[in-house]
């Protein structure tokens, strides 16, 4: 089992990558937005919500790590 410090340090590396990739993939869903900034913001919000949900699943299945 990874130590909690390992768990906390790893996301700093991969979290921006996941958010960037997710935003790029979700952006077409918000193509009708009036500005590219809003398109990106909504795609980032959706990706962030999915990542947050994933984090909560990790807490549910490995609560002792938090």
């Amino acid at each position, binding site marked *: 089992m990874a130590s909690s410090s390992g768990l906390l340090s790893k996301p700093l590396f991969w979290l921006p990558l996941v958010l960037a990739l997710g935003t790029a993939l979700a952006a077409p869903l918000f193509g009708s937005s009036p500005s590219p*900034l809003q398109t990106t913001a909504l795609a980032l919000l959706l990706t962030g919500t999915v990542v947050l949900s994933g984090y*909560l699943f990790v807490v549910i299945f490995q609560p002792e790590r*938090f």
Partner: protein
Amino acid sequence: MTTLQPPIFPRMPRGRRDQRRYTERPKSDGLLGRAVVQSFVKLDPRLTVRNPVMFVVWCGTLVTLAATVEPRLFELSPEAPGRGFNALLSLILLATLLFANFAEALAEGRGKAQADALRRTQASTQARRLLPDGSESLVDSSALRRGDQVRVSQGEMVPADGEVVDGVAAVDESAITGESAPVLKEAGSDVASSVTGGTRVVSDELLIRITADPGKGFIDRMIALVEGAERTKTPNEIALTVLLAVLTQVFLIAVATLPPVAAYIGSPTPVVVLVALLVALIPTTIGGLLSAIGIAGMDRVAQFNVIATSGRAVEACGDITTLVLDKTGTITLGNRLAEEFLPVGGHSERELATTAHAASWFDNTPEGKSIVRLAEKLDAVTTLPMDTATGLEFSARTRMSGTDLADGNELRKGAVEAIKGFVRSRGGTVPADLDGAYERVSRLGGTPLAVCLNAEIHGVIYLKDIIKPGMRERFDQLRRMGIRSVMLTGDNAITAGVIAREAGVDDFIAEATPEDKIAVIQAEQRLGRLVAMTGDGTNDAPALAQANVGVAMNSGTQAAKEAANMVDLDSDPTKLIDIVTIGKQLLITRGALTTFSIANDVAKYFAILPALFGKAGLAPLNLMGLASPQSAILSAMVFNALIIPALVPLALKGVAFRPATADQLLRRNLLVYGLGGLVVPFIGIKLIDLAVSALRLV
């Protein structure tokens, strides 16, 4: 350890508990200021991520802050809230986070202050280490290692934890216990040979074998514990974390999937309002207070001069269903005193007293000394040649002690059955009236000690046991809490029965050996019960390790302290009952605040849902008559934030505890905190809404 002459607890405090002087309470100067600073430090996402509920609030705050900078960042609808509303919402969410962090920082700060007080006792000192050739070298206490031997004289500080291997001295332990009366420490004693680093020798000299390497001593472990360095989540906290994470997940998914539905019914919902709805739905109150409650539980135990090795141990106290207690020192006063001589077999009282005087000549226990005093009072002093005699120490196996004279005569005193066996083994007979005297003493709740000279029994000594005041009421309280009490004693069944009846314990084991203690604990655990016990001797160590909650006396041996999961600095075995109460209080507090947290969400639904879906026909749900949708959302959020600091004192102090069964406590919890959690937010949100409207904030 239940023996005929059980251990004495030399550190047992006297007088009413509230009048005793405990460890200097840590100074709280600057505690609030430090907690405020820590509240901001804990906004670091690497720390917030440990608390799933508050991390979701943290993410929500980030979204509302972004919407404050650019109000049209997430919004397609022209009716989206403006920058002012978003800024207010961001501030309220930030306050929610800070209040939760403040609760935790305040609880941690109290522990740290206690650790600082302990650290002050850890001043580095010089020690006289014994070298193999018998000479001494002066070394720093940090250079001492396990197994080293040091000599500590009057006025010097004990450099590290150890066992006394030679000498007798008075030691001032007030630095760690707060008790100013010095304690006698001597080699070979099961309960008085352990010394703690940082205490001071106030008379004579001791030779000490070091038992802990630097940084691994008793005070080091205490500091680490009260600072929370070794704090891990308890099973109850883990279960509650899962529950809170599941609830948060469910509400996150519900809120995230709401926009398409809302758009379909013609009520498009702005993102910041969805964030407010999510924060209102998730259990932020208990999420914000959960760790503070756990830390405060450890702190309360520590304030009671008890050091727990983990929060798990404190929490286990709350689930205890059986208490295994030694009679002597716990239920009765430690020192039994000789009350009367009952001669048998045609011997006179004076003859018996003289034999008892000689048999107790080398007995330095309080019981032995009281026998000598009673004999002297009757002017029955032995004339036997004691200067050439040798003493025979009491043992749990033989259950007798005595004196061997140089001419071959043997004087013995001890358990009646043991003395009968001794006499028969030497070809003697048991007087017919012995059993009568034995029963008479037993029926008085006293301990009968038979006395013999060689193969002839002279009579019985009546040792009087005194039940501590208030024990019956305490056991009644425990019974009301659903806790069974079992008394262990080396006494015979009649004596044990009388004491058990008078004290009000539920069960007793008479003529118990040290092995019986483990057997009783295992038997109770097989029935699914959780067992707590106290102990101080090396032979208590296995039972202390076996028990779900083992409380070792600070005056006890190192082995006992290492096997136990709590150490009582006052060495007061009665305190086990208080520890159980603190554990119960911890669980009840957590349960009460969880109930309140979930119940107070209901009012927030009635505030936010009509605000969100008023146009879709949910306006009648605005039971509180809140002024506008935006003021309703702000009022619910303000209440959500303010309820956390409002409940901090309750989280730290614990809810008022009254002894009752689990069912009664659950009913009371639901009534007070469930119903209160339903009603209070309706009133609170309405009042805040009136203030928000009056101040024209939205």
